[in-house]
């Protein structure tokens, strides 16, 4: 096996005038050096899965051809006997660069005379999206209070602790490619590989072993997957690439970075009458697999959970000389939530009302569902019950009293809340296709009963630690009436598993994937009962299944086991009813009629050290409703993990760049992930309102924790800083930023995007 390493661009923007690989290729142990010049002239750029109406093309390739647009862009691949030799040889590749002026932020990219990333464009705007309902201008004119604020959301990323990895084996005799990759989209990756490499889809097998965290970053089709496959073809040997920690900060998609200017109008009684927002998404150097999807989603979520009749939003996706932006748990929802919830807090402050009360007055009431908002249709919810439960769980009124006493002692204690809703069960296919998504929103479940009576579930979804294999096994076991340990779940292999419409993302595994598996298991159950009825000489309707034993109701001694059924179906078809085909499996499809919308409330209680700016948690409550809970432990784990990432976004994480678009993050000393020592253990409670759209009633929960937690933390910090009249508008709230809000250090701090607005 050969080991691949990539030479990456050290420049944010440059032309490649020439590359000389001769010295590198001459290093003993080096088997191949591949550059963009080795790609045929008609070699296709990386395909995209999301093609929104009107978006511009930002072609980029497995290896840069003649121009690089961000630091970290792959320029050459070295395949060698060891990664050590590969890294030695990489240093000997001579590139003649012609540096070009770079843009380091969306605003810089929009400035008059800014350098263009794509020469044939008139500006650096890759796409614009607008949506409107009602009459916002009238709402603003007639409002008793209007608040306007600019929000700055920093660039962060999913940062899975297990980075990416690709292993390609190209059987040049049979012309078949097997590619193991750390991905959330094996079927999309297979199709894209086919389009780029010109090898028919069935000759490509993509295998995704258990993945150590994806969080959306692996819902992307990366240049390395293509380049490593090419290296395997060229060398005729398996080639492996494992992303190292340093390159992961540059080579894996980034996320979140936006500037949002938003305005909210309200009446004196706290009823919100309108919202408008201008969203600027910093896409980095190119539109990646999901295009500007997260920025689009931010824009259409700007009414959050509220009945706001008038809204107008505009989202612009702008290219800059930074790593391409992509998916991260929550997509654009944490940004929208941050802006809307911060504005609601400001409305409350201006009106002298309790922020929980302002929210209560505006929540979509249960009898308004299904509720059509700015773009989506929300399926169901009991929002006010959820708010009440959260306020009770955290002892909101008690904290308000304690806060008063603590303030009198000079302590800076704040209580902040946010209400979120999450887009899950992404579908239906027709809606997604119309919106520009290439793949559908369906999922296919395949359940096969084996000869020994155990069941195997095949799914195109990928297990990356979220635990859905357990959830799918539970659904299958329940439908079939067998114990959980009688079900095996096979995931992530395009040769074995059915196609999944979208991939493992958008919190759809349990809801859409689960519904498909349950449907297939029900079909298998029907045949099980038919076979058992024949063997027991009883009517199907008289049978019941319990723990793998099918018996006649009222006569438990008359039974057959699942093993008997399996044997009959495959090994002794003579035992089957006349005319029944052998075999015992089913493939069923579920395409959701609409999306399912879980929701929840975060309440954070923080204390700020006024001398150091450090934020610590005194309490945290989280109440949510994700419909039917398949497995409470998994659901709680999802909430804990998502919340931790949301707190990371609020307080710690930032992929800083300098004004020349050079990254300032290279290790975990620069990119601070919170640890168990930083994250509070939340008081967590559930409401269960089954989704009317999903058989079984499950909604998704994968991203929920990330969406409302940044806003809640920001709200709590702002509340704690009430004595200083501070307004929190940017993240992360570093100790320096907090002292900036207090006024102890100046706003002119040279630390990028740290000092808070005052």
């Amino acid at each position, binding site marked *: 096996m050969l080991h691949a390493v990539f030479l990456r661009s050290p420049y944010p923007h440059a032309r490649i005038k020439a590359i000389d690989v001769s010295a590198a290729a001459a290093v003993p142990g080096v088997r191949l050096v591949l550059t963009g010049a080795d790609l045929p002239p008609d070699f296709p750029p990386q395909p995209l899965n999301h093609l929104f109406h009107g978006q511009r093309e930002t072609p980029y390739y497995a290896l840069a051809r003649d121009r690089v647009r961000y630091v970290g862009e792959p320029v050459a691949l070295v395949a060698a006997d*060891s*990664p*050590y030799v*590969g*890294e*030695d040889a990489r240093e000997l590749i001579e590139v003649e660069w012609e540096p070009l002026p770079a843009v380091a932020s969306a605003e810089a990219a929009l400035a008059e005379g800014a350098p263009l990333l794509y020469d044939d464009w008139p500006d650096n705007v890759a796409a614009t999206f607008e949506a409107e309902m009602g009459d916002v201008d009238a709402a603003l004119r007639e409002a008793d209070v209007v608040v306007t604020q600019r929000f700055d959301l920093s660039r962060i990323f999913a940062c899975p602790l297990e980075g990416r990895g690709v292993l390609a084996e190209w059987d040049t005799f049979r012309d078949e490619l097997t590619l193991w990759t750390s991905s959330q989209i094996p079927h999309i990756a297979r199709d894209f590989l086919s389009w780029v490499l010109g090898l028919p889809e069935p000759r490509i097998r993509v295998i995704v072993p258990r993945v150590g965290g994806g969080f959306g970053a692996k819902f992307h089709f990366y240049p390395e997957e293509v380049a490593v496959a090419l290296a395997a073809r060229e060398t005729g040997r398996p080639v492996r690439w494992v992303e*190292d*920690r*340093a390159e992961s900060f540059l080579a894996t998609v980034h996320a979140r970075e936006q500037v949002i200017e938003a305005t909210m109008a309200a009446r004196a009684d706290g009823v919100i009458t309108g919202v408008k927002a201008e969203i600027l998404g910093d896409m980095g150097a190119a539109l990646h697999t999901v295009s500007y999807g997260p920025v689009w989603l931010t824009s259409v979520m700007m009414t959050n959970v509220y009945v706001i009749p008038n809204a107008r939003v505009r989202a612009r996706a702008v290219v800059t000389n930074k790593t391409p932006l992509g998916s991260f748990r929550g997509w654009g929802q944490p940004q929208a939530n941050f802006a809307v919830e911060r504005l609601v807090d400001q409305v409350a402050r201006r009106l002298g009302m309790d922020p929980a009360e302002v929210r209560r007055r505006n929540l979509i009431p249960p009898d308004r569902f299904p509720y059509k908002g700015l773009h989506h249709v929300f399926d169901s919810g009991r929002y006010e019950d959820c708010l009440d439960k959260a306020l009770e769980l955290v002892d909101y009124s008690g904290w308000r009293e304690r806060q008063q006493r603590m303030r009198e002692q000079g302590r800076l204690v704040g209580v902040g809340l946010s209400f979120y809703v999450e887009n899950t069960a992404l579908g239906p296919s027709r809606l997604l296709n119309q919106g520009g998504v290439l793949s559908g929103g369906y999922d296919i479940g395949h359940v096969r009963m084996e000869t020994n009576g155990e069941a195997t579930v095949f799914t195109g979804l990928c297990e990356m630690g979220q635990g859905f294999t357990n959830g799918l096994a539970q659904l299958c076991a329940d439908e079939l009436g067998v114990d959980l340990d009688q079900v095996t779940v096979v995931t992530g292999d395009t040769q074995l598993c059915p196609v999944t419409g979208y991939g493992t993302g958008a919190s759809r595994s349990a809801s859409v994937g689960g519904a498909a598996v349950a449907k297939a298991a029900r079909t298998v159950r029907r045949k099980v009962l038919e076979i058992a009825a024949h063997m027991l000489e009883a009517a199907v309707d008289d049978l019941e299944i319990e723990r793998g034993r099918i018996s006649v109701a009222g006569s438990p001694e008359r039974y057959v086991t699942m093993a008997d059924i399996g044997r009959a179906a495959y090994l002794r078809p003579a035992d089957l009813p006349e005319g029944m085909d052998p075999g015992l499996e089913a493939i069923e499809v579920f395409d959701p009629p609409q999306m399912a919308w879980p929701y929840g409330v975060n309440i954070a209680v923080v204390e700020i050290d006024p*001398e*150091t*700016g*450090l934020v610590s948690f005194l309490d945290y409550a989280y109440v949510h409703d994700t419909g039917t809970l398949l497995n409470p432990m998994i659901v709680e784990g999802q909430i804990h993990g998502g919340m931790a990432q949301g707190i990371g976004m609020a307080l*710690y994480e930032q992929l*800083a760049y300098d004004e020349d678009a050079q990254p*300032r*993050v*290279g*290790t975990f*000393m*620069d990119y*601070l*992930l*919170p*640890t168990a*020592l*930083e994250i509070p253990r939340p008081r967590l409670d559930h409401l269960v309102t089954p989704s009317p759209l999903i058989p079984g009633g499950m909604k998704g929960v994968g991203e929920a924790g990330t969406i409302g937690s940044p806003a809640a933390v920001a709200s709590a910090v702002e509340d704690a800083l009430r004595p200083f009249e501070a307004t929190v508008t940017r993240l992360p709230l*570093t*100790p*320096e930023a907090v*002292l900036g809000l207090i006024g*102890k*250090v*100046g706003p002119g*701090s*040279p*630390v*990028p995007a*740290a000092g808070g607005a005052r």
Partner: protein
Amino acid sequence: MKPAAFRYCRPATVEEALEALAEHGEEAKVLAGGQSLVPLLNLRVIRPGVIVDVNGVDGLDQVVHENGAVRIGAMARQRRLELDGGVENRLPLLHEALGFVAHIPIRTRGTVGGSVAHADPAAEIPAVTVALGATMHVRGQDDARAIPASDFYIGPFTTAISPTELLVAIELPALPQGAGWAFLEVARVHGAFALVGVAALLHAADDGTLADARLALCGVGGTPVAIPGVREIAAGEAPTEELFETLAEHVRKTIDPFTDTQASAEYRREVAGALVVRALRLASHRAGAEGKE
């Protein structure tokens, strides 16, 4: 993240190690716990031709309690010292600082000598050596030197150890009876390097005024910074909040901190003062508590 090629040698004695260093000079790097060196190798930030791994050297990890001092072998692991009751009793400042050094797995491999020789200006242990007035015992092939901490740290990641010398032990004076101590720091997350760290020592006279005071900081300059003039300001004064504030202002004026991606110089200066007051308060409290016992 694979290092460039290097030669590896694993001496069994100090003499063998010194022989290797004498032979390779600037080309060689000493590998102790590896918690800083190995990442730097992997990132190819440094490319030594030879790694002299002293993990196999006998006796370099001994901790000896001598008259009024503790002599810590350069290879003594940080975690071991943290759990050593004798060290906790006689070097409570070091004990307290060790709790801030990264995380337990790192302290389990990391050595005191490695941290001192690496001389990261944000690291805790170098600040403790400066505060306590430690003596670094360094050996060359032909001689041995005892370098006071005040002369030891020359700049960021630079010490008075010559390329052919090996740090063998750090001698730290035990805390006298009745003295108070405190180590405090601000880091953005637990285990991260200090944005600012403060080591404080107070010696009370019989009349309750201060006989001596010392302050050393990390994260605020190119080396661990022993603040000059602290004794002059504090001696003969009562340990009051007013005095602590005066010392904090003195520290803010004295230090010349830097800006990096985590905090500005202005933040470091501001917070250094706040931490100094807290550290002095805690040290004073402890000095009082000790006195009553």
